[in-house]
């Protein structure tokens, strides 16, 4: 693993090499400075970003890349990785504040509270749909929680970009709908 000390890897902007995250990132990224879902999974595991929770599954990593993948390349550069790790840390502390018994899972009503605490204003019906999709036996593991947050964040921003006057309603054409939802 590359040690991000002084006089380390050539290139990169000043300060980047001292960022501990850069060490993890560059040890998996190729020459193109981009990482794919598999590499992201390795990177997150090595950097211990899941904390004491189980490492992220590949599908969740793929979702995380698509959340920030503005050029639809299916890969992530270092800046996006930094952004992602800040977001994950935020979600992780929300999750652990509800995982009071440190079981690595939270219950349905705690998920609802966590999601409200993050600023999403959802009805019980919408919450039920989300719960059904992401829970196992009424409990949600950290990886599923992250997966749920990524989807919520992505879908909310898709919706908002089509509801510019903030009426709470948006119009979708069929082709657009398919592409937008499948790109998740």
């Amino acid at each position, binding site marked *: 693993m590359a040690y991000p000390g002084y006089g380390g890897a050539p290139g990169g902007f000043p300060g980047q090499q001292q960022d501990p995250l850069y060490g993890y990132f560059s040890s998996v990224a190729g020459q193109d400075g981009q990482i794919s879902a598999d590499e992201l999974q390795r990177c997150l595991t090595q950097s211990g970003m899941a904390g004491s929770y189980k490492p992220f599954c590949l599908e969740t990593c*793929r979702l995380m890349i698509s959340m920030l993948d503005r050029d*639809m390349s299916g890969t992530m550069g270092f800046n996006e990785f930094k952004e992602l790790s800040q977001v994950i840390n935020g979600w992780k502390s929300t999750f652990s504040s509800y995982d009071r018994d440190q079981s690595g899972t939270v219950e349905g009503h705690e998920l609802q509270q966590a999601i409200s605490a993050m600023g999403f204003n959802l*009805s019980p*019906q919408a919450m039920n749909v989300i719960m059904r999709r992401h829970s196992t036996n009424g409990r949600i593991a950290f990886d599923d929680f992250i997966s749920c947050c990524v989807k919520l964040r992505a879908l909310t921003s898709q919706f908002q970009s089509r509801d510019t006057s903030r009426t709470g309603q948006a119009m*979708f054409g*069929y082709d657009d709908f398919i592409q937008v939802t*499948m790109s998740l």
Partner: protein
Amino acid sequence: MAYHSPYKAPPHINAPPDQGFLWNIFQRVDKDRSGVISDSELQQALSNGTWTPFNPVTVRSIISMFDRENKGGVNFNEFAGVWKYITDWQNIFRTYDRDNSGFIDKNELRQALTGFGYRLSDQFYGTLIEKFDRQRKGQVAFDDFIQCCIVLQRLTDVFRRYDTDQDGWIQVSYEQYLSMVFNIV
């Protein structure tokens, strides 16, 4: 019309299989002779051409499509539907796997989905492959191809339910949008 429901199965060139033939297959697949083919029995009977297990999510989707009694498997009557469904998909897959590689690459996927009536941007096919390709080959195997089409179909179905005037546009609230999509992706 702005859009239409894609893949009705292609014109049926095969005669329906005879019952004896189907029963033989059913018995071979129903290993524990319970009279019901479970997810795992169906998974073991199917091949995706890669020597790895058939996509379990696809197996679940197929069983749930034909399991009319919510029992978590299919009996012999329901199995006829499963057999036809898979045979139709095999025919479609072979049609579009033009280089006979056993995989559908981005170009072949574009031709298949365009053939089904979808109008999607070129870049988007790359996204689809990235999303569904479990073999990490940059192409989709048989089971992942079916899975991709199933999800596209489900999204189309949910869209149509909201598109009451069938003009290819829907207006939805934030809540409706989340509920529509969270169920499927």
